[in-house]
């Protein structure tokens, strides 16, 4: 049974990605009582699924380690995973937040020793790897998962697989009778940082993501490059497991398009530039990357990064929104279009296509548990009508990590302002 103390001086942060973690920590480190709610069984959100960050080519888990330690050392902060907000009522300084907590079937007694995982055989698509790999029915979502506690997939509950897991646990940490819980929490202010989700590439019909195996998305590409990903960091194309060495990156796949996402998702240009660096690091001169773009949006010092990539002769830039993709007899994607610089018509064969899909708000407008002022794109506006509820990170607009963290820090102040005015 989860017991949490919350008052109207409490700040509730919805979403435990990098933005939510940041907002929660910044507020907690100034002495505020904070409750962080995360829908997944672990914190870290989308960034934990990235291989490297631009522009430093450093690893997201590095910052995560620091944030996890900040959390461990902070008593003002309560973390609830597998928790979803179902309803928010009240107003600035006096909110009531209803929370649904799904059963993990594993208690805090878990030592992450891994015995349960060994005995369970049923496998499921691994959502952490965008279903590119498999995971067991008893699993730790990823190697940096925090809390470092196993999860039992609800699908094996009631099967002997679950019983096997329970038996394997020497610490009685598996509780198969665990049920859904609901909490009612008070809060003075709420930071909404549920972040983003990749645009559904199936909707971009001309590119045949739904029809061609060797057309993948940029987020999937991150998992493929990660040494701890489904391919052990090998760049293997889905159709035949061959190494991909002639890779096309299609920018604005679903972004800047009134048929899909009206907005520019901002991070995709840099993400693709970064991904060409992965390819260069892996294969040097043996591999070629081609970026099909409308405008390259590498703002501020990212321009230096863009120039570095441009100076690599194995990376080609073609100013063109690819018109369509067909597949040849070897399942190589063939890209058709016109390079608008000089009106050059092309039909280029690549062995792998990476769609730079953009970000859309992870929470559907219609699903918000409270009425907020949103823009047409579904992002939360900074509007007084939203009272004591503030967006933090990519709930507010399409941001890269640095901008999201910066924005979440600002959101923390907005929340602190509300509760400080209550306490005084």
């Amino acid at each position, binding site marked *: 049974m989860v017991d949490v103390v919350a008052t109207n001086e409490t700040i509730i942060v919805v979403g435990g990605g990098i933005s939510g973690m940041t907002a929660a920590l910044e507020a907690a480190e100034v002495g505020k009582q904070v409750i962080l709610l995360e829908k997944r069984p672990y914190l870290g959100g989308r960034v934990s699924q990235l291989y490297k960050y631009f522009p430093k080519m450093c690893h997201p888990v590095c910052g995560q380690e620091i944030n996890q330690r900040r959390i461990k050392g902070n008593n003002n902060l309560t973390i609830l995973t597998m928790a979803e907000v179902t309803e928010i009522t009240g107003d600035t300084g006096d909110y009531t937040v209803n929370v649904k907590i799904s059963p993990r079937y594993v208690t805090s007694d878990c030592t992450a020793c891994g015995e349960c995982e060994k005995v369970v055989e049923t496998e499921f698509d691994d959502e952490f790897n965008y279903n590119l790999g498999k995971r067991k029915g008893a699993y730790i979502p990823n190697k940096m998962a925090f809390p470092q506690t196993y999860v039992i997939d609800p699908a094996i509950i009631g099967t002997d697989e679950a019983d096997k897991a329970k038996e394997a646990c020497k610490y009685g940490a598996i509780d198969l009778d665990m049920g859904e819980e609901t909490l009612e929490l008070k809060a003075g202010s709420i930071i909404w940082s549920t972040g983003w989700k990749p645009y559904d590439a199936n909707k971009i*019909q*001309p590119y*045949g993501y*739904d*029809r061609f195996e060797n057309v993948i998305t940029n987020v999937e590409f991150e998992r493929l490059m990660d040494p701890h990903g489904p391919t052990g960091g090998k760049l293997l194309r889905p159709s035949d497991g061959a190494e991909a060495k002639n890779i096309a990156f299609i920018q604005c796949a679903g972004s800047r398009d009134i048929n899909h996402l009206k907005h520019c998702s901002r991070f995709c240009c840099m993400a693709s530039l970064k991904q060409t660096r992965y390819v260069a690091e892996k294969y040097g001169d043996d591999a070629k990357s081609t970026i099909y773009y409308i405008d390259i949006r590498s703002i501020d010092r990212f321009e230096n990064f863009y120039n570095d990539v441009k100076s690599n002769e194995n990376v080609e830039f073609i100013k063109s929104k690819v018109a*369509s993709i*067909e*597949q040849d007899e070897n399942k190589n994607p063939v890209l058709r279009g016109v390079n608008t610089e000089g009106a050059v018509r092309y039909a280029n064969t690549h062995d792998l296509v990476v769609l730079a899909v953009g970000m859309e708000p992870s929470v559907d407008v219609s699903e918000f548990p409270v009425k907020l002022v949103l823009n047409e794109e579904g992002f939360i506006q900074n509007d007084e009508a939203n009272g004591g509820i503030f967006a933090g990170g990519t709930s507010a607009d399409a941001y890269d990590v640095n901008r999201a963290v910066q924005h979440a820090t600002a959101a923390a102040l907005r929340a602190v302002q509300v509760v400080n005015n209550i306490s005084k």
Partner: protein
Amino acid sequence: MAHEYSFYPGCSSQKGASGSNQMVSNETMCDKLDIKLNAIDDWNCCGASVGYSGGGELARLTISARNIAISEKQHPDQDLIATCPACWLATRETQERLHDDPQMMSDANKALAEIGVEYQGIKKPARHMTEVLVEDIGFDGIAKPVTKPLEGLKIAGYVGCQSNRPYGIAGESFENPMYLDKMSEAVGAEALTGYEKKASCCGGALMFSEQEKSQALVKEIIEAAYDHGADMIMTPCAMCQMNVEAYQSDINEKYGTKFDIPVVFYSQVLSVAYGSTASEAALDGQLIAPKKLIDIANK
């Protein structure tokens, strides 16, 4: 109870016109599906896809507005449907354009006034015959009257352009529409779902003015069908049907190919599956005889 619609046949679907085989088979198909089509009396040409340069915008919209106005007068509560994609497109386009542009609307009515007709604006959007089948009848409904499942028949569903873009059939994609494949499957045939040319262009009206360019397009459409082992190509469009069927010998001449593949309307395929005779299904109206279909019809 019967589904009733106000029907706009269009120039090619007239007796003795290039699409009369569609007309005939469509009537047969509708009988079997208990669909009643009430042709609008005194309809006129829609201007088709090449009417633009001679007609210009207003005249083109006006002549289509005339059809709609007449239809609404004659069959007030019935959806206006067309079998010809160009007719459907022109009609629906007219509805939208006049709705969005009041100036255009009043001008059109000024012209219509010359013959005492008035267009009152969009009531129900014009629909294509395939929409009726997919939405009102449904694939189960399409399967119901089947008495001769078309087992073993390999069909390349060639949707073409104008029944698919810019409006398309509800829930379908512009790039990879599936409704023809689903129809084939509904009547027991094998749908070649991977047929990648299903939505590419046959050259349309440019087959008359730019034969070489257009035939180059048709060549690819047919080639792909052969690559997938198709017994025949099935289409909803009279223009596509004509272009893909009629010029195979020309293409063979130019490219040294040996094309000889039947190109039929879905209404012909469905009719046969519903037990119609070859002539009821207007199979005698083909330039390249769909033998397998004829055999089934004659069984």
